[in-house]
């Protein structure tokens, strides 16, 4: 499954995940989901809203350990995460937020990172003084500065305007190209997944399971409308069969 030469960075085998809701009933969220990610690979998990994508991500990064199955991470297991909401410390500046998560990061690396993400002018600002788009970038900067072996992104571009999404996507591509990082992107947007990933895992509605795995040729490069239509058609067919 992994691309040639890459040792595996993530082996995921979830058999079953459910949780108890307020009424006492158990809600079955995830069915069987298994995949591996190779070194430097960028994968996208796409599924309908509410299918359990965030739960899947929480299991992978270890925030949720109440499930049947196993998650095998690299030995050091440094995980960077970009949550759906930026989750910055409001009482610390942009720079402090990044440095607190990544104390090992040097000045050269941080300057480059801030420059790529257009944050150089905002280092001394507090999160409350930033727009949502800027706060999302700080959250991205924090995850990259941490130099994770696995980077997990949970709908990082949701509720931003189209032009900004385009720009952030370009910045994210620049970051993963510049420093190859095994990345797992969770999104409901097929466009986002096609634009960023080497491979797309398509999830069924809840309880989620993988209904299709679609490799993307020449990932992260510009493609014609015809190519896009072909990929989208593949995904649609898979969703219909699943």
């Amino acid at each position, binding site marked *: 499954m992994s691309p040639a030469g890459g040792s595996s960075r993530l082996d995921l085998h979830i058999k079953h995940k459910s949780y108890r809701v307020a009424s006492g009933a158990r809600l079955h969220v995830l069915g069987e989901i298994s995949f591996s990610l190779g070194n430097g690979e960028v994968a996208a998990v796409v599924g309908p809203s509410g299918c359990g994508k965030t739960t899947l991500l929480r299991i992978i990064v270890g*925030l949720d350990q109440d499930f049947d199955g196993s998650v095998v991470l690299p030995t050091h297991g*440094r995980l960077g*995460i970009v*949550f759906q909401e930026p*989750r910055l*410390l409001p*009482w610390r500046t942009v720079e402090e937020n990044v440095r*607190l*998560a990544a104390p090992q990061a040097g000045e050269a690396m941080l300057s480059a990172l801030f420059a790529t993400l257009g944050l150089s002018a905002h280092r001394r600002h507090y999160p409350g003084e930033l727009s949502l788009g800027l706060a999302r970038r700080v959250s991205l900067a924090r995850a990259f500065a*941490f130099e994770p072996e696995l980077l997990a992104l949970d709908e990082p571009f949701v509720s931003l305007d189209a032009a900004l999404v385009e720009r952030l996507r370009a910045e994210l591509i620049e970051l993963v190209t510049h420093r190859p990082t095994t990345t797992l992107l969770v999104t409901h947007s097929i466009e986002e997944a096609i634009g960023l990933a080497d491979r797309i895992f398509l999830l069924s509605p809840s309880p989620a399971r993988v209904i299709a795995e679609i490799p993307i040729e020449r990932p992260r490069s510009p493609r014609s409308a015809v190519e896009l239509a072909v990929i989208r058609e593949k995904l649609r067919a898979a969703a219909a069969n699943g």
Partner: protein
Amino acid sequence: MNLALRLGSVAFLLAVWLAGSQLVGPQLLPSPQTVGLAIVHEARSGALAFNLGVTLLRVAAAFTIAMVFGTVIGLAMGRIAVIDRLADPWLVILLNLPALVIIVLAYVWAGLTETAALVAVALNKLPITIVTVREGARALDPSLDEMASVFRMSGWTRLRHVTMPQLAPYLAAAIRSGLSLVWKIVLIVELLGRPNGVGFEIGVAFQLFDVTRILAYALSFVIVMLAIETFLVQPFERHVSRWRIKPA
């Protein structure tokens, strides 16, 4: 404008005082001038500085003990349900025990000692700190905790940069209410069982019916506490809330 209002308000207070003193006579309410002279007299002899200093030290010690233990216990009760359930009845008892009972029992059990005095004052302040900090701990944002644990922040980093800033408004409230409560109770403790301090002096003055001296000491200490509020507590509050966007 603000300063003028404040000064005007203080001037009005002095005028009311003066009028009251004329009305009931200097025996019951000495004039501001008499009290001012008494303060100068006590200051010259060195007794004022000594007694203020002793009382201030007791306030500082009891306050620190109560804040440190109150914060630790409040944080533990707010975060760990078992501890909350175990400690809650104790807290309710302590909250409802009158200050006088705690002071008298402390003196009876531990003798008329400095330790007994400080423990008695700290025990009066402790439950209020616990309750305030516990509220703060219950309001801690779990999403920031998750962030800190994914990024593997050390315990110290989490305490200093994630937990304490969230508790800051609650701690500020505990400090505010705590300082005024502690100094009032320290005076009672001194009155009942210490050989010095503002409370002791006021006790002596009471036996001699010396209202001038009572007011001289009380006023001096109020000024000290006002200075602490202005030069320590308020700058601290401004510092911990510097990240908040100021209303225009």
